[in-house]
């Protein structure tokens, strides 16, 4: 259903209706921002990257293949842009400061202050773990866990094979597990501790 409306909005945008593209932005801004944030670990930079990804999508909308999911297409643009940013960041790394931890209000499901604090600590912890991964591994983890994309979809997005994605994901998981070995896991949730 949402893919039908996506296709319609794409057609309307191509016909000159800017409002239709606004609908697409509203529908996918959270997905695009989350991917940028998980990849870049900086809220401001993630917003810039998300905006740039949407601008690129708009500029290249004529190249979009309607047989593919718009969400996957826009996420693929975002991931390419984020990897470019990470490469540029490495080339022109001037700041010695650690990135600021995300704000506790980053997640929407935080009804009480205690839960907000726990969620914030978990957020920082996981983001710290992700930050240690190479961008290629990080991207696969984010696409698999936050978007629930299949190996085939991820492989299509990253222009590689399913077995390569499987292998990358396992190595990423193993690298994260190795990092856990050297760090004590905060007792966020009994389920995490006891499993």
């Amino acid at each position, binding site marked *: 259903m949402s893919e039908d409306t996506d296709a319609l909005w794409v057609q309307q945008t191509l016909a000159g209706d800017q409002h239709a593209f606004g609908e697409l932005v509203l529908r996918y801004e959270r997905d695009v921002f989350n991917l940028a944030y998980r990849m870049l670990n900086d809220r401001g930079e993630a917003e810039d990257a*998300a905006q740039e990804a949407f601008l690129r999508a708009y500029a290249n909308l004529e190249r979009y293949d309607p047989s593919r999911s718009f969400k996957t297409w826009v996420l693929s643009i975002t991931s390419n842009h984020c990897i470019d940013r990470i490469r540029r960041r490495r080339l022109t790394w001037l700041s010695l400061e650690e990135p600021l931890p995300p704000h506790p209000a980053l997640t*929407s499901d935080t009804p009480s202050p205690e839960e907000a604090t726990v969620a914030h600590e978990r957020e920082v912890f996981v983001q710290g773990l992700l930050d240690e991964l190479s961008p290629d591994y990080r991207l696969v983890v984010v696409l698999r866990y936050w978007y629930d994309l299949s190996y085939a979809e991820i492989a299509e997005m990253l222009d590689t094979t399913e077995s390569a994605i499987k292998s990358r994901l396992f190595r990423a998981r193993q690298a994260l597990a190795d990092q856990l070995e050297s760090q004590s896991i905060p007792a966020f949730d009994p389920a995490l501790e006891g499993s």
Partner: protein
Amino acid sequence: MVDDRSKFEQSMNSALDHELSEEELHALQEQVEESPAAADNWKRLRQVDALLRSLPLAVPADSLAGKVMAAIAAQQIAELARRRHGLGLALGLVAAALLTVPLLSALVLLLVSTITNPGTIAAILQGAAAVTSYVVDLVADLGRQLRSLASDTPALLALLTAVIPMSMLWGWLVWYLLGGSRLAGDKDVL
């Protein structure tokens, strides 16, 4: 051995993706329990999996969609301005080309008519000769005036001959005392 390890890793990966059947999961469990190191690794992998699954999507600022649409609008205005600028430039070039052809033709015609007309060439040459002769006369007259001044007042010439070297000497002395030689030396070094 390597194949077994790879198969074991694949099984763990598939288990985390919920892709194993009950039997396969049971077999993996048994394999894990055989080695404390494998059991520890498996536990950490499941913790990583649970941690990653526990985080929701990060939420952007409310203004993100507005910013995107504003940037698109700004881009379109810039594109329109660029197109207008390009159109203006193209029209200007066409107009310039249209003007250049008649102007250039007129200039060529004028040059050709001038060159091919002996009367005009003679007038131009006569004008040039008159100007040259006037300048030569002026210089010769100036020389004559100077010569007559020197012969009429020889004291003035002698005074000038003495005053000029003296002024130069005094000038050099003042420059030297004010540190001019040092400044000149610095300039050389620089």
